[in-house]
């Protein structure tokens, strides 16, 4: 959709980028949000290392990425929802419900192999509930998912109360906590990588993904060109619920604790990661690669602040909040600046008197 917008704004640039000159390639590379993120990653690496010599270590990566596991998983699914110009703020609550359900089922002597699919299925149901409210009743997803944010968290407390269940089998907790085949890469990162590939292919290389972009860019146009808008959105919400529930399974096993209070406020970090990754809050724009870079950036900043000897952890929230605003503001400003530049360098006939 990005390409389409550029075409309408400036017809001469419509020629495929591959045919463009070397210098223009370079400029478009510079202009890309992902490039900016990579630049920020470099800055973060240098800054983090200045804060603590422990920053650029395998250890930081292992523990830092473990801390981000659930947020990363949920960000993949939420990215798709936001590309479709909707939002799901209930993900952290679905995660908690899944964790509570897992605890309850385990207390009732169910095997983990059976619990996991049940949890994911319940998560999918939660997502579908969101989806039905949004698509069939035409309610705004912001309102719906703020409602279900409270509702699912409440359900989680109904399921397990204030208790926490901690006696999950070690085989499973080791799987969630451990590293992949003797490397410093946690198993949860491998799980994330697999899902990231699946979601990237789904979004960027399938007709379904193209429909998601089309819906996000212009829902009405998408509808009139024959896309089953409601159905696609329902699928996205359902998928989002299922992935959030999977994140619930991961956090439960990783911490060896099933409880209803896990991950409070995670939805904020998830949305921050997605928007910082260059996914437009207005839909129709964004890449999975950008989201991954944003996750690296957020995880890195969090780790650097934690490693700092003098900065309080309150700053993590302040930085997350600031990044959220910057990531919404940044692309807008960049686009405006680009527009101005284009007008100056190449006044189009329509603009002339």
């Amino acid at each position, binding site marked *: 959709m990005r390409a389409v917008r550029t075409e309408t704004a400036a017809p001469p640039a419509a020629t*495929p*980028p*591959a045919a463009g000159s070397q210098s223009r*390639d370079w400029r478009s*590379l510079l202009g*890309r949000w*992902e*490039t900016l993120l*990579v630049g920020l*990653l*470099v800055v973060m*690496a240098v800054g983090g*290392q200045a804060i*603590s*010599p*422990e920053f*650029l*270590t*395998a*250890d*930081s*990566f292992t*523990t*830092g990425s*473990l*801390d981000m596991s659930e947020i990363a998983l949920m960000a993949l699914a939420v990215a798709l929802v936001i590309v479709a110009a909707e939002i799901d703020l209930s993900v952290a609550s679905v995660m908690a419900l899944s964790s509570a359900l897992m605890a309850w089922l385990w207390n009732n002597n169910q095997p983990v192999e059976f619990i996991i699919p049940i949890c994911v299925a319940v998560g999918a149901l939660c997502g579908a509930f969101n989806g039905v409210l949004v698509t069939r009743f035409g309610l705004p997803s912001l309102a719906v998912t703020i409602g279900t944010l409270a509702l699912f968290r409440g359900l989680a407390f109904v399921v397990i109360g204030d208790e*926490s269940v*901690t*006696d999950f089998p070690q085989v499973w*907790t080791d799987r969630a*906590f451990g590293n992949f085949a003797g490397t*410093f890469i946690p198993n949860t990162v491998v799980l994330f990588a697999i899902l990231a590939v699946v979601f990237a292919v789904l979004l960027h290389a399938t007709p379904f993904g193209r429909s998601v972009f089309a819906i996000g860019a212009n829902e009405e146009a998408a509808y009139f060109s024959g896309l089953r808008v409601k159905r696609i959105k329902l699928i996205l919400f359902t998928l989002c619920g299922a992935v959030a529930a999977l994140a619930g399974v991961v*956090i439960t096993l990783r*911490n*060896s*604790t099933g*409880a209803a*209070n*896990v*991950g*409070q*406020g995670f939805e904020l970090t998830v949305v921050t990661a997605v928007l910082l990754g260059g996914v437009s809050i207005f839909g129709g724009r964004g890449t999975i*690669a950008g989201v991954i*870079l944003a996750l690296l950036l957020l995880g890195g900043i*969090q*780790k650097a602040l*934690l*490693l700092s*000897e003098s900065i*309080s*952890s*309150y700053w*993590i*929230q302040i930085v997350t909040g600031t990044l959220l605003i910057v990531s919404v503001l940044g692309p807008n400003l960049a686009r405006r600046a680009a527009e101005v530049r284009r007008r100056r360098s190449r006044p189009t006939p329509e603009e002339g008197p």
Partner: protein
Amino acid sequence: MKLTRLLAALALLAALALAACGETQEETDGAAQDGEATQTAQEGQADPNAEIPQGLKTVSIPKQLGNPYEEFEHSGVDEALEELGGSNRVSGPTDASASSQIPIINAAVQQSPDAIIIAGNDPDAVAPALKQAAQRDIKVVGMDSDVAPDARSVFINQVTTQQVGEAQVESLGKQIDYQGEIAILSATANATNQNAWIEVMKETLKQDKYKDMKLVKIAYGDDDDQKSFQETQGLIQAYPNLKGIISPTTVGVAAAARYLSTSPQKGKIKLTGLGFPNQMRKFVKDGTVDEFQLWVPKDVGYLAGQAAAALVAGRITGKEGETFTAGRLGEYTIGANGEIVLGPLTTFNAENIDEFDF
């Protein structure tokens, strides 16, 4: 074209990763050397006369930042470390959940302090992260609320159930000459701590010394200020001969004191309990309450800091029966399961209450 961009991004990332790996190598080497050094220093059994090294570094992890009780507790760790020529850093999560404490622990472990002192938000969830600390020869001391015993060397317990029950009965007993009707104002009917303490109180009252004290009623104020206030009022109306009330909950004892302070029975019906000096100060000053009790959170932290230093020095290893001197608090013995009990409750009265600010 897309591919070029992707490749460029990947190349940069790879460079980053390489830089990271380079660092790792060095770090691991450093850590290994440190590890060896400490290992040799600690071979064999506990040596009660071992020197406490200068410049000890510890990290103490509260359940949550911004909680005055926790802050006071952790200031005790600071005090102990300063006294021993070392330093402590408080690093905690912004909410009191186990999942937010884990990243804090991981970061602390990476900084390779000599010891980590933690008030756990969940005994088991934080255990794997703490075990990483043990692997790197970082000593772990639990305090306030315990973590899994295999994830820490010692645990500092404020006070035992037995001590609370006995001390509270004695506190009231001596105020009423060990005779007359008494009542208990508790929290909720199913509060674990309070019920355990009340059981001990009942047992204690069976002793000869307390045979003339008669427990007439256990009221439940549900740790709600208004309800506790009303329950106190009810107790006094229902039992005109009531001589004293024990309220082993900070909410209850403050509410009961507030009721008594404006009632005609002020100073006649004795009140004791577990309370915060800051909440109880005015009732002690105006004569409503002669004395009440609690542990001193700062001492919990101080003892934890001292225990951490003793562990690092090798004076103790965490085994039952080992003893060590904890600065101004005196000598302590490690009990079963690596538990160290701070000791009897501290009694607050008109003479000493101004020394405490929590």
